[in-house]
């Protein structure tokens, strides 16, 4: 997704202005001359300057405001990208309830199949990934990973 500099420039400048405005709200600590607001204010000012420079360049070289041509790919690739992104959100939402092993298995298996892996290869690879990562992180590295729905199955 390519945005024209006519959009990114003003957006950056606006973002910079928002940072400056937010910095002024940081309450001053009595007796401290250079407080928490100093650095963000400088960053905000520089962001506004960079945003203006990029916007000026954008108006000098007019290109389409939004270019989505790179996503003109087989539907399978678009689905794989959506699975990768939305899958993370679903995994976050169901993490405690479903548990890491099941989510990792479904997430990896689905993506492998969408990306064109052979079913048997995908099943074996996703199962192997799940087992190695789950036991590696929970048993060796002691990361508390929820087992969720598979609590009764997993040793």
């Amino acid at each position, binding site marked *: 997704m390519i945005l024209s500099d006519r959009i990114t420039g003003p957006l950056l400048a606006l973002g910079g202005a928002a940072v400056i405005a937010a910095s002024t709200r940081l309450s001053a600590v009595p007796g401290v001359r250079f407080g928490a607001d100093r*650095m963000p204010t400088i960053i905000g000012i520089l962001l506004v300057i960079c945003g203006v420079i990029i916007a000026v*360049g954008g108006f000098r070289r007019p290109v389409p405001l939004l270019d989505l041509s790179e996503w003109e*790919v087989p539907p399978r*690739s678009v689905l794989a990208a959506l699975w990768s992104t939305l899958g*993370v959100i679903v995994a976050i939402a169901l993490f405690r309830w479903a548990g890491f092993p099941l989510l990792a298995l479904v997430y*990896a298996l689905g993506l492998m199949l969408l990306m064109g892996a052979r079913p048997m290869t995908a099943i074996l690879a996703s199962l192997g990934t799940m087992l190695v990562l789950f036991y590696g992180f929970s048993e060796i*590295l002691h*990361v508390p990973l929820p087992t969720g729905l598979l609590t009764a199955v997993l040793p």
Partner: protein
Amino acid sequence: MTAATFIAAFGIVMAPSVLLAVLSGSVYGLVIGALPGLTATMATALLVPVTFYMDPIPAVALIVSSTAMAITAGDIPGALLRIPGTPASAAYVDEAHQLVRTKGAETALSIGFFFSALGGLVGATVLLLTGPLLARVSLNFSSFEFFWLATLGLLTCALVSGPAPARGFVSLLLGLLIATVGLDVTTGQPRFTFGSVELTGGVSFIPVMIGMFAFSEILRGFTTAATSTDAAPPDTGRLRPYRGMGTLFRKYPFSVLRGTALGATIGALPGVGGDLAAWIAYGISRRFSRTPEKFGTGHEEGLIEATSSNNSGLSSAWIPALVFGIPGDAVTAIAVGVLYMKGVSPGPRLFVDDPVTPTAIIMTFFLANLLLFPLGYFAIKSARHILSIPRAVIVPMILVCCILGSYAVNNTLFGVWIMLIAGLVGYLMERNNFPIAPVILGLVLGPVLERNFIMSMQISRGDLMGFFSRPISCGLGILVCAILTLTIFNAVRRLSAQNTKPKGQIQ
């Protein structure tokens, strides 16, 4: 450096945990580096969660060995498929591919591994010799010098990492802005936390890095903009690695010398890193070659110079990172972050208070680069098989690692959210020509920059001339101002040149 320090450091490096870390890091780096589209920085980013549970030296050894191997293994897809495995190998990808066609895969891949290892060893020697000396000099540095060094590193990184300075600066400012989230470094006041308990501790650089380097790269892989990796690796036949390397070394000694010297010098500049060294070395090799007409047709000379500069720069990029605490590139920024996590603060005091630790870290470079010879042998032998690993299997595995790695930072899902957002932002930034490396450098160096800036302002009581009051700080300040002035001057000149052209020509 005393003999006792050297022996103690050698003892640490020879510990089984360190040797195992170097070996596993090398094998891991070999696989990631050889797969097109998976970069050395991504390999390093994914390793960080694993380093939580390790001692400082094995943790750094893991990072060093995986990076050295991933950068070198990037030559495999470059030579065989004409798809650079890493940004550094893009400099000479055509030359290597042509060499495969004219003299076979054996020569091209052997040059990659043999001269990379050689360059890496020279870079490590430079690091070992100059590190303690520079540390002794920088012991007298105050907040003014450290402020200018951090600024110089950030400035050069922003300038060299992207096509347009303004875009590099935006990336840098984004990193610095993220670094301001959490408790203020001087007053302890909450800043941009929006009432969130998780944000009070700041934004951890690990999920940001995993998102920006791994998740965004994989998203980009689904688009047409990504390089096609469907090309079948050519039949490499029976390979005999490293055959004829001695002859090439005797034939082009100056190329090896110049490449390693250039790599060591460029890599040591704060904010520049090793990637740029390969591009410059290849260009210089062509410029000063007796047979420049052979370049582009599969000529060994440029390849030797560029590959040796590659790993030499990789090692010397650790000079500013270890000596000043100012990382040279994204990989060293990650490593510096890991060292901070382990309670090891890189900087001149480290060389005085605990000289064994930095010496042991430097020694891991020798180990990692020496290991390139035997592992390179097997890598060349099995190059075709490594390239045959289907992307459809590797990518989902990496994504699960991204989720797990981000979760393991604090054992909370907040890290996974950060990774996802950073990944989407990173994808948008990359597609719109905003470089990612300055974001990470800004994030890691932000607190260092702010602390030294505020401290200097307090010392000089708000007088900006105080930043030029000491000789070294004055020199560094003038250098920073000169780079800025030159950048602005070039931008204005380019703008006025465009104004004089007819409108159609500009478009």
